[in-house]
């Protein structure tokens, strides 16, 4: 890919909105304890600004960036899946042998992982059936 003017200008938007989203999440995490309404107001404002950037520049549909995101999603789910596939059976075994007790925190994470991969499995199966050659 040869860099053009529109590329260099466009690459600012994903970067800036990524930073704004990170800032928004940080704000939510830090201020939700003390000032929940300020935190949520700031969150909505920052996320809205980030989204507006994409709407105005029409960015975010760049082919190669889309491919990066799709590749990254695949790698992320693979890494989290492999880690979970090793960690959770280990925890179950440890709990069965009395070395570990399920706490609400561990159970919450376990249920998030289960929900995430149930969703992934459903989406993948649906897509697989739809793109099936006749």
């Amino acid at each position: 890919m040869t860099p053009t003017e529109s590329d260099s200008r466009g690459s600012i938007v994903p970067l800036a909105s990524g930073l704004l989203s990170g800032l928004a999440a940080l704000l939510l995490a830090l201020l939700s304890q003390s000032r929940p309404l300020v935190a949520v107001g700031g969150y909505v404002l920052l996320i809205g600004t980030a989204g507006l950037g994409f709407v105005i520049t029409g960015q975010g549909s760049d082919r190669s960036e889309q491919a990066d995101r799709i590749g990254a999603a695949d790698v992320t789910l693979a890494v989290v899946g492999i880690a979970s596939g090793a960690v959770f059976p280990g925890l179950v075994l440890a709990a069965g042998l009395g070395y570990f007790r399920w706490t609400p925190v561990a159970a919450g994470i376990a249920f998030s992982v289960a929900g995430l991969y149930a969703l992934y499995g459903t989406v993948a199966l649906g897509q697989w059936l739809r793109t099936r050659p006749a």
Partner: protein
Amino acid sequence: MTYPLLSPVVVRRLIGFAVVLGSLALAGLTIVSRPLVGVAAYVLSLVVVAAALLQTDSPVFDERDETVSKEAASRTLTVFGVASAVVFPALTVAWGLDMFEWQPWSSAIGVFVAVLYLTYGAFTVAIGSRR
């Protein structure tokens, strides 16, 4: 193993069923307090996957499987992300208005989602910079 005994289609189905049944058995048997049986079932499913992979020479997963897996991963993280971006701020508002109390398990889910998307963001940056 130099001779293929199973066709890629059979191997794919075996792997699919083994992974789904193994995970369900692990989760279900843990919930009904039979953790050791659950782990045994899970290990058995891993053995089935490994054995199935050894019984074939030809590539098991083709390009269409890869494309489906990638697009499904992207859609899953999008759906999960949009849902989280709505649910967690809403819970925070509810908490601020004393209509919701954070529990250890709900905070754990929040932290898990945050870590998941930090990982996703890091991989996006890493893959983008390598291009």
